[in-house]
Protein backbone atom coordinates (compact mmCIF):
# COMPACT_ATOMS: atom_id res chain seq x y z
CA UNK A 1 0.00 0.00 0.00
CA UNK A 2 1.45 3.34 -1.08
CA UNK A 3 2.04 5.89 1.65
CA UNK A 4 0.77 8.64 -0.63
CA UNK A 5 -2.86 9.54 -1.14
CA UNK A 6 -4.43 11.97 -3.57
CA UNK A 7 -7.60 13.98 -3.10
CA UNK A 8 -9.37 16.84 -4.86
CA UNK A 9 -9.60 20.14 -2.95
CA UNK A 10 -11.94 22.63 -4.67
CA UNK A 11 -10.93 21.06 -7.98
CA UNK A 12 -7.17 21.04 -7.28
CA UNK A 13 -5.33 17.72 -7.06
CA UNK A 14 -3.58 17.54 -3.68
CA UNK A 15 -1.08 14.89 -2.66
CA UNK A 16 -0.71 13.91 0.97
CA UNK A 17 0.96 11.33 3.12
CA UNK A 18 -1.42 8.72 4.42
CA UNK A 19 -2.53 9.92 7.90
CA UNK A 20 -1.61 13.52 7.09
CA UNK A 21 -4.51 15.86 7.83
CA UNK A 22 -6.36 17.68 5.07
CA UNK A 23 -5.22 20.94 6.69
CA UNK A 24 -1.53 20.07 6.66
CA UNK A 25 -1.71 18.76 3.10
CA UNK A 26 -3.46 21.96 2.01
CA UNK A 27 -0.90 24.17 3.76
CA UNK A 28 1.90 22.25 2.08
CA UNK A 29 0.22 22.72 -1.28
CA UNK A 30 -0.22 26.43 -0.62
CA UNK A 31 -4.01 26.29 -0.39
CA UNK A 32 -5.58 28.27 2.45
CA UNK A 33 -8.23 26.65 4.60
CA UNK A 34 -9.43 29.18 7.22
CA UNK A 35 -8.27 28.22 10.72
CA UNK A 36 -8.04 29.70 14.18
CA UNK A 37 -7.06 26.97 16.63
CA UNK A 38 -4.69 25.19 14.27
CA UNK A 39 -1.09 26.29 13.91
CA UNK A 40 1.45 24.39 11.83
CA UNK A 41 3.93 22.82 14.19
CA UNK A 42 1.48 22.22 17.03
CA UNK A 43 -0.59 19.09 17.55
CA UNK A 44 -4.05 19.52 16.03
CA UNK A 45 -6.76 20.51 18.49
CA UNK A 46 -10.03 20.83 16.58
CA UNK A 47 -11.97 23.24 18.77
CA UNK A 48 -12.86 26.26 16.62
CA UNK A 49 -14.38 24.45 13.63
CA UNK A 50 -13.54 27.40 11.39
CA UNK A 51 -11.64 24.92 9.20
CA UNK A 52 -14.80 22.95 8.45
CA UNK A 53 -14.70 21.48 4.94
CA UNK A 54 -16.95 18.96 3.26
CA UNK A 55 -15.35 15.59 2.57
CA UNK A 56 -17.44 13.65 0.08
CA UNK A 57 -20.34 15.86 1.14
CA UNK A 58 -19.84 15.38 4.87
CA UNK A 59 -18.72 18.26 7.15
CA UNK A 60 -15.36 17.63 8.87
CA UNK A 61 -12.76 19.75 10.63
CA UNK A 62 -9.86 19.81 8.16
CA UNK A 63 -7.23 20.15 10.90
CA UNK A 64 -8.06 16.78 12.44
CA UNK A 65 -9.43 14.89 9.44
CA UNK A 66 -6.86 12.62 7.75
CA UNK A 67 -6.72 12.92 3.97
CA UNK A 68 -8.48 10.03 2.24
CA UNK A 69 -7.44 8.69 -1.14
CA UNK A 70 -9.82 9.75 -3.88
CA UNK A 71 -11.88 12.06 -1.64
CA UNK A 72 -13.57 15.18 -2.96
CA UNK A 73 -13.09 18.08 -0.53
CA UNK A 74 -14.97 21.37 -0.70
CA UNK A 75 -13.39 24.36 1.03
CA UNK A 76 -13.96 27.82 -0.39
CA UNK A 77 -17.71 27.61 -1.02
CA UNK A 78 -20.48 30.07 -0.15
CA UNK A 79 -22.13 27.51 2.11
CA UNK A 80 -18.99 26.74 4.12
CA UNK A 81 -18.00 30.40 4.37
CA UNK A 82 -21.50 31.16 5.69
CA UNK A 83 -21.02 28.48 8.37
CA UNK A 84 -17.60 29.93 9.22
CA UNK A 85 -19.11 33.40 9.47
CA UNK A 86 -21.65 32.02 11.93
CA UNK A 87 -18.91 30.40 14.03
CA UNK A 88 -16.84 33.57 14.10
CA UNK A 89 -19.90 35.63 15.04
CA UNK A 90 -20.55 33.27 17.94
CA UNK A 91 -16.98 33.75 19.17
CA UNK A 92 -17.59 37.50 19.18
CA UNK A 93 -20.94 37.48 21.02
CA UNK A 94 -19.81 34.75 23.43
CA UNK A 95 -16.94 36.89 24.75
CA UNK A 96 -16.42 40.59 25.27
CA UNK A 97 -14.61 41.94 22.24
CA UNK A 98 -14.14 45.70 22.20
CA UNK A 99 -11.78 45.95 19.25
CA UNK A 100 -11.66 49.74 19.37
CA UNK A 101 -9.69 49.59 22.61
CA UNK A 102 -7.90 46.26 22.23
CA UNK A 103 -4.10 46.12 21.98
CA UNK A 104 -4.33 43.23 19.54
CA UNK A 105 -6.57 45.04 17.06
CA UNK A 106 -5.11 44.91 13.56
CA UNK A 107 -2.97 41.90 14.48
CA UNK A 108 -5.78 39.71 15.81
CA UNK A 109 -6.64 36.52 13.94
CA UNK A 110 -10.25 36.43 15.14
CA UNK A 111 -10.87 39.98 13.97
CA UNK A 112 -9.01 39.28 10.73
CA UNK A 113 -11.14 36.18 10.13
CA UNK A 114 -14.28 38.28 10.61
CA UNK A 115 -12.94 40.82 8.10
CA UNK A 116 -12.08 38.08 5.65
CA UNK A 117 -15.56 36.62 5.94
CA UNK A 118 -17.16 40.06 5.59
CA UNK A 119 -18.79 40.23 9.05
CA UNK A 120 -20.10 43.79 9.46
CA UNK A 121 -21.96 43.01 12.69
CA UNK A 122 -22.87 39.78 14.48
CA UNK A 123 -26.47 38.72 13.98
CA UNK A 124 -26.69 36.93 17.33
CA UNK A 125 -27.44 38.69 20.64
CA UNK A 126 -24.43 39.61 22.75
CA UNK A 127 -24.06 37.47 25.86
CA UNK A 128 -21.80 39.93 27.72
CA UNK A 129 -20.47 37.19 30.02
CA UNK A 130 -18.74 38.12 33.23
CA UNK A 131 -15.05 37.34 32.80
CA UNK A 132 -12.04 38.59 34.69
CA UNK A 133 -8.57 39.82 33.87
CA UNK A 134 -5.42 38.45 35.47
CA UNK A 135 -2.96 41.32 35.45
CA UNK A 136 -0.98 40.04 38.44
CA UNK A 137 2.19 39.29 36.48
CA UNK A 138 4.54 42.25 36.02
CA UNK A 139 5.02 41.61 32.29
CA UNK A 140 2.09 39.50 31.11
CA UNK A 141 -1.64 39.80 31.25
CA UNK A 142 -4.43 37.35 30.62
CA UNK A 143 -7.79 38.85 29.62
CA UNK A 144 -10.45 36.13 29.73
CA UNK A 145 -12.91 38.47 27.99
CA UNK A 146 -11.07 37.89 24.72
CA UNK A 147 -10.06 34.24 25.06
CA UNK A 148 -11.49 31.93 22.40
CA UNK A 149 -10.36 28.71 24.13
CA UNK A 150 -8.19 27.63 21.23
CA UNK A 151 -5.57 26.00 23.47
CA UNK A 152 -2.75 27.43 21.39
CA UNK A 153 -1.14 28.71 24.62
CA UNK A 154 -1.69 25.33 26.29
CA UNK A 155 -0.04 23.39 23.48
CA UNK A 156 2.79 25.87 22.94
CA UNK A 157 3.66 26.05 26.61
CA UNK A 158 3.64 22.27 26.88
CA UNK A 159 5.31 21.33 23.60
CA UNK A 160 7.58 24.25 22.72
CA UNK A 161 8.28 26.00 26.03
CA UNK A 162 8.38 22.69 27.92
CA UNK A 163 6.44 24.17 30.84
CA UNK A 164 2.69 23.46 30.99
CA UNK A 165 1.81 26.91 32.32
CA UNK A 166 -1.75 26.82 30.93
CA UNK A 167 -4.64 24.42 31.08
CA UNK A 168 -8.44 24.37 31.06
CA UNK A 169 -10.80 24.34 34.02
CA UNK A 170 -14.60 23.81 34.15
CA UNK A 171 -16.81 22.69 31.29
CA UNK A 172 -19.26 23.95 28.69
CA UNK A 173 -20.03 27.64 28.85
CA UNK A 174 -17.96 27.87 32.06
CA UNK A 175 -14.80 26.52 30.44
CA UNK A 176 -11.85 28.82 30.82
CA UNK A 177 -8.13 28.90 30.55
CA UNK A 178 -6.21 28.77 33.83
CA UNK A 179 -2.74 28.54 35.24
CA UNK A 180 -2.69 26.07 38.13
CA UNK A 181 -6.12 26.20 39.83
CA UNK A 182 -6.30 29.01 42.33
CA UNK A 183 -2.99 30.42 41.16
CA UNK A 184 -2.53 33.80 39.48
CA UNK A 185 -0.16 34.38 36.59
CA UNK A 186 2.45 35.98 38.82
CA UNK A 187 2.76 32.77 40.84
CA UNK A 188 3.05 30.58 37.77
CA UNK A 189 6.07 29.63 35.73
CA UNK A 190 4.98 32.00 32.97
CA UNK A 191 7.74 34.19 31.62
CA UNK A 192 7.67 37.13 29.25
CA UNK A 193 9.91 35.22 26.81
CA UNK A 194 7.51 32.26 26.57
CA UNK A 195 6.50 31.40 23.02
CA UNK A 196 3.04 30.65 24.40
CA UNK A 197 2.45 34.39 24.45
CA UNK A 198 3.07 34.66 20.71
CA UNK A 199 0.78 31.72 20.10
CA UNK A 200 -2.37 33.47 21.29
CA UNK A 201 -4.34 34.48 18.19
CA UNK A 202 -6.31 37.18 20.02
CA UNK A 203 -5.73 39.81 22.68
CA UNK A 204 -6.22 37.39 25.58
CA UNK A 205 -2.57 36.73 26.38
CA UNK A 206 -0.47 39.84 26.00
CA UNK A 207 2.89 41.24 26.92
CA UNK A 208 2.36 44.39 28.91
CA UNK A 209 3.51 47.79 27.62
CA UNK A 210 3.63 46.61 24.01
CA UNK A 211 0.21 47.70 22.83
CA UNK A 212 -0.44 50.23 20.07
CA UNK A 213 3.22 50.49 19.07
CA UNK A 214 2.46 49.97 15.41
CA UNK A 215 0.21 52.65 13.91
CA UNK A 216 -2.99 51.85 12.07
CA UNK A 217 -1.99 51.06 8.51
CA UNK A 218 1.14 49.11 9.47
CA UNK A 219 -0.48 46.20 11.30
CA UNK A 220 -0.64 42.63 10.05
CA UNK A 221 -4.16 42.63 8.66
CA UNK A 222 -4.72 46.29 7.79
CA UNK A 223 -4.36 45.71 4.06
CA UNK A 224 -4.18 41.98 3.42
CA UNK A 225 -6.77 39.45 4.57
CA UNK A 226 -5.64 36.64 6.84
CA UNK A 227 -4.54 33.73 4.67
CA UNK A 228 -3.70 35.97 1.73
CA UNK A 229 -0.04 34.97 1.85
CA UNK A 230 -0.63 31.28 2.48
CA UNK A 231 -0.04 30.51 -1.18
CA UNK A 232 3.56 31.58 -0.63
CA UNK A 233 4.01 28.83 1.94
CA UNK A 234 4.52 26.39 -0.92
CA UNK A 235 7.61 24.31 -0.35
CA UNK A 236 7.84 25.26 3.30
CA UNK A 237 9.57 22.60 5.36
CA UNK A 238 7.27 19.87 6.56
CA UNK A 239 5.73 20.61 9.96
CA UNK A 240 7.77 23.77 10.28
CA UNK A 241 7.72 24.89 13.87
CA UNK A 242 9.83 28.00 13.70
CA UNK A 243 8.61 31.28 15.15
CA UNK A 244 7.34 32.39 11.74
CA UNK A 245 4.79 29.67 11.34
CA UNK A 246 3.63 30.01 14.92
CA UNK A 247 2.02 33.35 14.29
CA UNK A 248 2.66 34.14 10.66
CA UNK A 249 2.04 37.85 10.42
CA UNK A 250 0.41 38.81 13.67
CA UNK A 251 3.58 38.80 15.70
CA UNK A 252 5.43 40.98 13.25
CA UNK A 253 3.97 44.18 14.66
CA UNK A 254 4.70 43.37 18.26
CA UNK A 255 8.11 41.98 17.71
CA UNK A 256 9.23 45.00 15.75
CA UNK A 257 9.17 46.87 19.06
Amino acid at each position, binding site marked *: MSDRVTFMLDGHRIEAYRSQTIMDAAIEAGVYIPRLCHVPGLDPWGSCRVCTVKVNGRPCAACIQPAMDGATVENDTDELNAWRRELVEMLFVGGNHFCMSCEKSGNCEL*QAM*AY*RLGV*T*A*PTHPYLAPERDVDASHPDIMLDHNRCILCARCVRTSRDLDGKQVFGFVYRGAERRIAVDPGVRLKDSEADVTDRALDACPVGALLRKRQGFQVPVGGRAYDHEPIGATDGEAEGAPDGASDGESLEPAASAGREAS
Partner: protein
Amino acid sequence: MSTEAGTRPRIATVSLAGCFGCHMSLLDIDERILELAELVEIHKSPIVDRKTFAARCAVGLIEGGCCNAENVETLRAFRDHCDVLVSVGDCATMGGIPALRNRVPLKECLDEAYLSGPSTVNPTGRIPDDPELPLLLDRVYPCHEVVPIDYHVPGCPPPADALWAAVQALLSGEDPVLPYALLKYD
Protein backbone atom coordinates in the same frame (compact mmCIF):
# COMPACT_ATOMS: atom_id res chain seq x y z
CA MET B 1 -36.22 55.30 -2.95
CA SER B 2 -39.16 57.38 -1.86
CA THR B 3 -38.62 60.61 -3.72
CA GLU B 4 -40.62 62.19 -6.49
CA ALA B 5 -38.85 62.81 -9.77
CA GLY B 6 -36.83 66.01 -9.72
CA THR B 7 -36.26 66.09 -5.98
CA ARG B 8 -33.12 64.95 -4.25
CA PRO B 9 -33.34 61.90 -1.99
CA ARG B 10 -33.68 62.87 1.65
CA ILE B 11 -31.32 61.46 4.23
CA ALA B 12 -31.46 61.65 8.01
CA THR B 13 -28.73 61.10 10.59
CA VAL B 14 -28.70 60.85 14.36
CA SER B 15 -26.33 60.20 17.23
CA LEU B 16 -27.83 57.97 19.94
CA ALA B 17 -25.46 56.54 22.58
CA GLY B 18 -22.40 57.61 20.62
CA CYS B 19 -19.74 60.31 20.85
CA PHE B 20 -20.41 62.13 17.57
CA GLY B 21 -17.16 60.71 16.26
CA CYS B 22 -19.02 59.00 13.43
CA HIS B 23 -20.59 62.31 12.44
CA MET B 24 -17.11 63.85 12.54
CA SER B 25 -15.95 61.07 10.25
CA LEU B 26 -18.81 61.87 7.88
CA LEU B 27 -17.61 65.48 7.80
CA ASP B 28 -14.14 64.07 7.11
CA ILE B 29 -15.18 63.32 3.54
CA ASP B 30 -13.76 66.82 3.02
CA GLU B 31 -14.69 68.54 -0.23
CA ARG B 32 -16.96 65.64 -1.16
CA ILE B 33 -19.38 67.20 1.31
CA LEU B 34 -20.25 69.65 -1.49
CA GLU B 35 -21.02 66.73 -3.76
CA LEU B 36 -23.14 65.21 -1.00
CA ALA B 37 -25.06 68.47 -0.63
CA GLU B 38 -25.80 68.34 -4.37
CA LEU B 39 -26.84 64.69 -4.21
CA VAL B 40 -29.14 64.68 -1.20
CA GLU B 41 -31.31 66.80 1.00
CA ILE B 42 -30.30 66.45 4.64
CA HIS B 43 -33.73 66.30 6.20
CA LYS B 44 -33.24 65.53 9.87
CA SER B 45 -29.80 65.52 11.44
CA PRO B 46 -27.77 67.28 14.13
CA ILE B 47 -26.42 69.29 11.20
CA VAL B 48 -29.83 70.82 10.41
CA ASP B 49 -31.42 70.58 13.87
CA ARG B 50 -34.92 69.48 12.86
CA LYS B 51 -36.59 67.80 15.84
CA THR B 52 -39.15 65.53 14.14
CA PHE B 53 -39.56 63.95 10.74
CA ALA B 54 -41.66 66.04 8.32
CA ALA B 55 -41.18 63.70 5.36
CA ARG B 56 -40.14 60.19 4.47
CA CYS B 57 -36.40 59.69 3.97
CA ALA B 58 -34.52 57.37 1.66
CA VAL B 59 -31.62 56.67 4.00
CA GLY B 60 -31.17 56.95 7.77
CA LEU B 61 -27.67 56.79 9.24
CA ILE B 62 -27.62 55.80 12.91
CA GLU B 63 -24.64 56.54 15.10
CA GLY B 64 -24.63 55.03 18.60
CA GLY B 65 -26.51 52.19 20.23
CA CYS B 66 -29.46 52.39 22.64
CA CYS B 67 -28.66 53.13 26.28
CA ASN B 68 -31.95 54.80 27.29
CA ALA B 69 -35.65 55.01 26.46
CA GLU B 70 -35.22 58.13 24.35
CA ASN B 71 -32.66 56.35 22.14
CA VAL B 72 -35.21 53.60 21.55
CA GLU B 73 -37.96 56.07 20.70
CA THR B 74 -35.71 57.98 18.28
CA LEU B 75 -34.47 54.79 16.65
CA ARG B 76 -38.06 53.58 16.16
CA ALA B 77 -38.97 56.92 14.56
CA PHE B 78 -36.04 56.49 12.19
CA ARG B 79 -37.18 52.97 11.32
CA ASP B 80 -40.69 54.28 10.65
CA HIS B 81 -39.55 57.16 8.44
CA CYS B 82 -36.54 55.76 6.55
CA ASP B 83 -36.58 53.28 3.67
CA VAL B 84 -33.09 52.04 4.46
CA LEU B 85 -31.51 52.15 7.90
CA VAL B 86 -27.75 51.88 8.35
CA SER B 87 -25.94 51.30 11.64
CA VAL B 88 -22.83 53.44 11.47
CA GLY B 89 -19.92 52.77 13.81
CA ASP B 90 -19.18 50.21 16.51
CA CYS B 91 -21.57 51.72 19.08
CA ALA B 92 -24.47 51.20 16.67
CA THR B 93 -23.30 47.78 15.48
CA MET B 94 -22.17 46.28 18.81
CA GLY B 95 -22.78 48.79 21.61
CA GLY B 96 -19.23 50.11 21.60
CA ILE B 97 -17.61 51.81 24.58
CA PRO B 98 -20.97 52.53 26.31
CA ALA B 99 -21.62 48.78 26.30
CA LEU B 100 -18.64 48.26 28.62
CA ARG B 101 -21.24 48.81 31.33
CA ASN B 102 -23.13 45.70 30.24
CA ARG B 103 -21.01 43.57 32.53
CA VAL B 104 -21.89 45.72 35.55
CA PRO B 105 -25.42 45.83 37.00
CA LEU B 106 -27.11 49.20 36.31
CA LYS B 107 -27.51 49.97 40.01
CA GLU B 108 -23.77 49.58 40.55
CA CYS B 109 -23.04 51.90 37.61
CA LEU B 110 -25.34 54.61 39.01
CA ASP B 111 -23.98 54.21 42.54
CA GLU B 112 -20.42 54.56 41.25
CA ALA B 113 -21.30 57.63 39.17
CA TYR B 114 -23.48 59.50 41.68
CA LEU B 115 -22.74 58.17 45.16
CA SER B 116 -19.51 56.29 45.74
CA GLY B 117 -17.15 57.28 42.90
CA PRO B 118 -13.78 58.63 44.09
CA SER B 119 -14.44 62.05 42.50
CA THR B 120 -18.16 62.24 43.34
CA VAL B 121 -19.47 65.25 45.28
CA ASN B 122 -23.19 64.77 45.86
CA PRO B 123 -24.39 66.17 49.20
CA THR B 124 -28.04 65.23 48.47
CA GLY B 125 -27.07 61.59 48.06
CA ARG B 126 -29.68 61.31 45.31
CA ILE B 127 -29.35 59.63 41.97
CA PRO B 128 -30.85 62.02 39.35
CA ASP B 129 -34.48 60.98 38.82
CA ASP B 130 -36.16 63.97 37.18
CA PRO B 131 -39.05 62.71 35.04
CA GLU B 132 -37.58 64.70 32.13
CA LEU B 133 -34.55 62.42 32.11
CA PRO B 134 -34.85 59.41 29.83
CA LEU B 135 -34.81 56.13 31.72
CA LEU B 136 -31.64 54.10 31.33
CA LEU B 137 -32.01 50.63 29.87
CA ASP B 138 -30.72 47.61 31.77
CA ARG B 139 -27.89 47.43 29.27
CA VAL B 140 -26.68 49.10 26.08
CA TYR B 141 -28.10 47.47 22.96
CA PRO B 142 -26.78 47.54 19.42
CA CYS B 143 -29.39 49.02 17.08
CA HIS B 144 -30.22 45.75 15.35
CA GLU B 145 -31.33 44.27 18.69
CA VAL B 146 -34.00 47.02 18.88
CA VAL B 147 -35.26 47.49 15.30
CA PRO B 148 -34.39 45.72 12.03
CA ILE B 149 -31.29 47.31 10.48
CA ASP B 150 -30.57 46.96 6.77
CA TYR B 151 -26.80 47.52 6.68
CA HIS B 152 -23.88 47.91 9.05
CA VAL B 153 -20.77 50.05 8.57
CA PRO B 154 -18.50 49.23 11.53
CA GLY B 155 -15.49 51.19 12.74
CA CYS B 156 -14.62 53.46 15.62
CA PRO B 157 -15.29 55.62 13.75
CA PRO B 158 -15.76 54.14 10.28
CA PRO B 159 -13.27 55.70 7.86
CA ALA B 160 -14.72 58.67 5.95
CA ASP B 161 -14.13 56.70 2.75
CA ALA B 162 -16.27 53.86 4.08
CA LEU B 163 -19.15 56.22 4.86
CA TRP B 164 -18.81 57.87 1.47
CA ALA B 165 -18.72 54.51 -0.31
CA ALA B 166 -21.78 53.31 1.63
CA VAL B 167 -23.82 56.45 0.99
CA GLN B 168 -22.90 56.47 -2.70
CA ALA B 169 -23.87 52.81 -3.07
CA LEU B 170 -27.18 53.33 -1.30
CA LEU B 171 -28.06 56.36 -3.40
CA SER B 172 -27.42 54.27 -6.52
CA GLY B 173 -29.70 51.58 -5.14
CA GLU B 174 -26.83 49.15 -4.58
CA ASP B 175 -25.83 47.11 -1.54
CA PRO B 176 -23.02 48.88 0.28
CA VAL B 177 -20.31 46.22 0.24
CA LEU B 178 -17.16 47.59 1.84
CA PRO B 179 -13.82 46.73 0.27
CA TYR B 180 -11.40 44.92 2.60
CA ALA B 181 -9.38 48.01 3.52
CA LEU B 182 -12.52 49.87 4.68
CA LEU B 183 -14.09 47.12 6.79
CA LYS B 184 -12.54 47.76 10.22
CA TYR B 185 -13.66 47.48 13.83
CA ASP B 186 -11.28 50.10 15.22
